[in-house]
């Protein structure tokens, strides 16, 4: 379980909230994170919502100390999994004994694949999905290069095959089985695979 590493990212607010909470009757913030680390992404069940970095915060409500506030930043604007994820979070918190739950969606700052944890990237690769190349996440935010606009040229950046590791791969389509993935084909083992696009 990689919870300590994950919470370090959001360490200050989490620690502050935990300190403000009276001990005893309710679970610790760390325990809530742990419970939510068991919530899988509905479309890629190999990774959890914590692995994907879409769970942004867990805290006790300052106005209502018995209520937990969970903040989520969805991946894509049109991600059809968002509603199911919210339901799953509610179910997991209820199972952990929490009765009063407030779920908040936070759009800014926008979710980025840079928030996928190293653990999450490893799980993606094992699942057969090439994880996003961190160096390219920044490039999608840069001013678009008009001269180099063709993805066929962009695709020259090698995406290693998650099955055989070969760097001889080719982009088939910029959009794969979901909006967040592109379709590639490995020219060495000839298998098709998904690539989680830098975003």
């Amino acid at each position: 379980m990689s919870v300590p590493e994950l919470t370090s990212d959001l360490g200050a607010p989490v620690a502050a909230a935990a300190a403000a909470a009276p001990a005893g009757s309710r679970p610790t913030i760390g325990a809530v994170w742990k419970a939510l680390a068991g919530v899988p992404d509905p479309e890629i069940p190999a990774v959890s919502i914590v692995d994907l970095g879409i769970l942004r915060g867990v805290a006790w409500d300052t106005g209502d100390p018995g209520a937990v506030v969970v903040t989520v930043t969805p991946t894509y604007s049109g991600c059809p999994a968002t509603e199911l994820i919210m339901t799953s979070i509610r179910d997991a918190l209820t199972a952990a004994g929490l009765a009063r739950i407030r779920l908040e969606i936070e759009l800014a700052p926008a979710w980025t694949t840079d928030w996928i944890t190293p653990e999450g990237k490893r799980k993606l690769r094992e699942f057969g999905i090439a994880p996003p190349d961190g160096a390219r996440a920044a490039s999608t935010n840069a001013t678009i290069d008009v001269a180099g606009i063709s993805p066929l040229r962009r695709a020259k950046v090698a995406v290693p095959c998650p099955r055989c590791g070969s760097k001889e791969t080719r982009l088939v389509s910029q959009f794969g089985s979901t909006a967040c993935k592109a379709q590639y084909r490995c020219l060495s083992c000839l298998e098709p695979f998904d690539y989680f696009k830098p975003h």
Partner: protein
Amino acid sequence: MKHDEALFQYLLRLGDSPLILAQRLGERVGHGPVLEEDIAQTNVGLDLLGQARLWLAYAGEVEAGFAAAGRDEDQLAFLRDAGEFRNLLLVEQPNGNFADTTARQFLFDAWHLRLLRALAGSTDARIAGIAAKGAKEAAYHAERSGDWVIRLGDGTDESRAKMQAAIDDLWMYTGEMFAPDATELALVEAGIAADVRALAAPWRQHVDAVLAEATLKAPGETFMQQGGRRGVHTEHLGRLLAEMQVLQRAYPGARW
């Protein structure tokens, strides 16, 4: 016009174009030229639909500030008539053949990407947040549609002829993308809206670069049809809405 009313109108403009284009792309489910592109174009539609929901949900909240009751995103999408829609004329044009669908997407994406990037700097934090998220999606859309213009333009004689005809046919709907009205300019002044006039030159540079690589010609000076911002649409929008809205019109409030 009061501030809230102007903002409401502006949010409808931002939301209606992606909504209508998403519906057009949805019509193509199962009709893509190859499986991968069938999936790709509907994924683009899904992104646009998600963006439309965010804009229209906000529009409804703003509307509640000056009208008796604000409408939610579903009421705004399913219960307005054509004259109340504020989308660009470009996006309501029929799918036609794959070159027509591609040209429409390309001309829109090159504009939409820059619009969203400009809006990411809006003084309205909600607009800035939605736009910053959408801009990342639009960058992938623009790459894909530009790539297809190049593939089809610099392809066979037939694909080249179809791609050129599609660009020529749709060109007259690109002028209104860069023509703000007084409502919009007041919001530009307030730092809320993006000044679309400033997008014209970079859009043209982008389009020209792709067309050149596709061995296609940019059309010359031509009459530019306008009207989307005022709710004056081509005849195609009514038919699109008839299909999009039929369920809510026949069974008001239906849910599943």
